[in-house]
């Protein structure tokens, strides 16, 4: 299956995304996000991801190298 080709966001969209991503949450907002109940789906999904990652890439250097390749693939898709 071909990976999806993502549309590159406009300059305005980029600015909005960057602003949202860099926004500092108040201590209350942060705490409520962190303490929100973990759903069964989230627990299983996150657990499976960590298990897959640490089993497939056993050393920290292998994990870092994988993340670097994944980031390069992601950036390449955005450039298209």
């Amino acid at each position, binding site marked *: 299956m071909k990976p999806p080709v993502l549309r590159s966001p406009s300059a305005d969209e980029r600015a909005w995304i960057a602003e949202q991503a860099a926004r500092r949450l108040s201590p209350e907002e942060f705490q409520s*996000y962190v303490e929100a109940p973990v759903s069964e789906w989230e627990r299983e999904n996150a657990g499976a*991801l960590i298990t897959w990652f640490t089993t497939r890439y056993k050393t920290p250097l292998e994990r870092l190298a994988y993340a670097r390749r994944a980031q390069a693939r992601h950036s390449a898709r955005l450039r298209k």
Partner: protein
Amino acid sequence: MEANLALVKGSEFDEALFFRAISQSGLRALLIGRRALIALGIPVMTADYDFWIHIDDIERFNAGALLFELIPDRTPLEARRSGRYRLQNDELVDVLVARSVPGPDGPLVFDDVWSRRNTLTSDDGGSNICVPSLEDLIASKRIGSRPKDAEDVRLLQQLRKQREAL
């Protein structure tokens, strides 16, 4: 075909050699931020590197980084004054050099965080990566307070639970 490969390929930056050089230099350098999560086993995306180094190790860290053509954007004196600086080429390395950073639960002090660090070892034996303890990583994320920091805390808590269950 070659053009496509060039798009997918990362830069010529030799990440493994970079970490080996840090490891073998004896520098007090902690990998923090999302790369630390990745090294610990959480697959998240990030484009840059974040380190927290001892304030007395700036010159040696820069000398090692120069071998990878990473250039500091501030002099060591300026970095000491501001508490942080960047190393750059087509890679970006954010370097925190403050002795301590204020947090919601009190200051996070480099010497304390360093004393509680986790050393992650690789099979090659020469590339140990030092990261803060899980508790200190979570505390550092609380200082960031961005939405992605909150997501990272949830993932770190999940990692801690998985480890406790083993």
